[in-house]
Structures are given as C-alpha cells and as structure tokens.
C-alpha cells in the first residue's frame, strides 16, 4: 500500500465518509471508491460491500480483487450522562460505535466525567432533532426522569433507529408506555423499546449494566435473536455467586 493511499483512506474515515479499499491481488494496485474513478463492475462490488458490511474477494475481468468496505462507526445516542453512560464510554470505540451523550444538566455532562465523548447539553427534543438518529443509530435513555427520557424516546420511535432501550423497572416502563401512548405511539412502536434495557445477566453495578446494554446493542446490530425486543415476563427469584462464610 502506498503511504498516500493509506493517508487518503484514513482521511475519509476520519471525515466519517463511507469508503471502500479495492486491491488487485495480482500486483497490489489499489483504488478508493467512490473517491476514485473505477470500472462499473468494481464500483458495483464496492457499493454492495458497503451495504452488506462484508469484505471479500471477487474476480473482475479475469483479475482477483479484494473489496474492503469501511463504513463510518455506528452511533449510540445515550440520554443521561450518568454512571452507566460513563461505563459505556470505554466499551463503545473498540466495538465500533461512536458514543454521543445528551444531558442538559451541566453537572452531569462534563468532559471530566466523559473524556473523549461527544457531549450535547441541549434538551433531548432539541438534541434529537439535531442528531437525527438513522438506521445506523441506537438510542438509550438512562436518566429515570420522564422530562428527559420521554422526549428522547418519542423522537427515537419516530426514527429508523436500529435499537431503542430505556432504563427502568417493569413498573416504571408500564407508566412510560402509558405516557408514550398519549403521544400517539401504538403497540408496534412500544414493541421496539428494549425495557428493562440490556440483556438479562442480572446486572447490578453500573459496569455490569453497561455490559448488558452494549451486548444487547451488538446483538441487535448483528441480527442475533437476543437482540430482538422480548415480551416482558416476570423474572424468577435468583441467587448470584457471592462470598459465603
């Protein structure tokens, strides 16, 4: 790879542009798509690879090519710069997500509490209007405060976000569902909300809850059945592994 190709590829990725690295395996010649002009058959393979997010080899005009898509990171919009959001922050990058934390409460949304995280201190309705969650976005509400969580969920349910999660007990969620219905959301909309949020690993601490939420988002992103919203069922009493005398 030429240093210049590497620099161009990294610049496109830093600008969050989708880019495909095309490598001719016989001699290592490389192009970037859509930035460079390439034959139609290569462009078609590149477009398909961005859609499927799968790298692979193809033969075009009797030449083997490696088609390597680089999509911008997926996004997780978290409402509430709380302890769980802090625990999610270091997990997000390595898992391929950009974390955006929304919280109008100045005491919570600080760079000291969330170093390196994109912070938005607008009210959630304004923040969501600006952030425009798309099909590559997850939205997670963590504040426990309907004044902050509800407008964010309202906006998320009107968006194509691939994952929507809301922290809170089943009782809290039942009340939330009633409020969201008053805003005009139907059963199909409610079924999109993961609540209680996160895979059921009986998480207790903030890092454990962050892990369960991140795992559920990954499952949703990868299309695993665990990532589908599930009907609320009462949980059995359980015992965790503790220290016994």
């Amino acid at each position: 790879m030429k240093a210049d190709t590497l620099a161009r590829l990294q610049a496109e990725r830093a600008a969050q542009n989708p880019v495909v690295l095309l490598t001719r395996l016989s001699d290592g010649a490389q192009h970037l798509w859509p930035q460079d002009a390439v034959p139609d058959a290569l462009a078609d393979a590149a477009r398909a690879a961005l859609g499927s997010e799968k790298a692979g080899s193809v033969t075009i005009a009797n030449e083997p090519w490696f088609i390597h898509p680089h999509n911008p990171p997926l996004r997780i919009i978290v409402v509430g710069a709380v302890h769980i959001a802090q625990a999610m922050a270091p997990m997000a990058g390595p898992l391929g997500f950009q974390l955006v934390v929304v919280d109008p409460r100045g005491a919570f949304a600080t760079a000291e509490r969330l170093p390196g995280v994109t912070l938005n201190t607008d009210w959630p309705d304004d923040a969501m209007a600006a952030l425009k969650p798309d099909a590559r976005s997850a939205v997670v509400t963590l504040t426990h405060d309907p004044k902050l969580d509800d407008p964010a969920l309202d906006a998320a349910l009107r968006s194509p976000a691939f994952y929507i999660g809301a922290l809170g007990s089943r009782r809290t969620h039942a009340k939330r569902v009633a409020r969201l219905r008053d805003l005009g959301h139907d059963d199909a909309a409610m079924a999109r909300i993961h609540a209680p949020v996160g895979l059921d690993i009986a998480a207790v601490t903030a890092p454990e809850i962050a892990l369960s939420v991140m795992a559920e988002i990954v499952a949703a992103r990868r299309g695993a059945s665990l990532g589908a919203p599930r009907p609320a069922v009462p949980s059995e009493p359980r015992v965790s592994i503790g220290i016994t005398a």
Partner: protein
Amino acid sequence: MTTDTTHSEDILAIAAQWRAAGEQVAIATVVETWGSSPRPAGSRLAVTASGRLMGSVSGGCIEGAVADAAKQAMASGTPQLLDFGVSDERAWEVGLSCGGKVKVFVEPLT
C-alpha cells in the same frame, strides 16, 4: 464531533503511526476464508521490520508465518498472497489446527 481513530482495532492508524516514527511497515489482510477460520475477511495485522506486531489475521495460529512473509515483502517491495489451510503442510507447522483455510494478502507500506 470526536472520532477515535486510534483505538486498538484501528490497525491502519497504528501502521501510519509506526511509519511516521521511521519504521518499515507491512500490512497483512485476510482476503478469503473457508470453513471455521477464526478471523473474517478484512482482519488486519500490521508488522514492522523491527518485529512489532499489532492486530490479528487468525487469532494467533499463523501470525508468525505471516510476519516472516511480511519481512520478505518489505525487503523485496513486492506484495504476496499467502495460502494457509489444513491441506497445506506448512499450515500444520504453524498451527492452523482449527480446520479452516485462509488467504492472506501481505503488502509493504511504500
């Protein structure tokens, strides 16, 4: 917007940093897999002539052999396409015992 392009999985960023620091660098990429190979196509390993390694193309089975090929590629300036699989005796030597097959493209950063 804050974009972290330097986290541990961004092998290209590491390759660029190493080169900027004066190292001779090669990049190895899984370009094809069959069966139960541990890392998908697109997985990368960066290698320096001085012996630094970051990333993975197999989860540890063939990285040593790939690093050797990378050093040759750096010396010759020519990319190489490597084949590893259970039908290949060399693969057994380097321990791709998972039963999968992979093709790895090794290119010097020039």
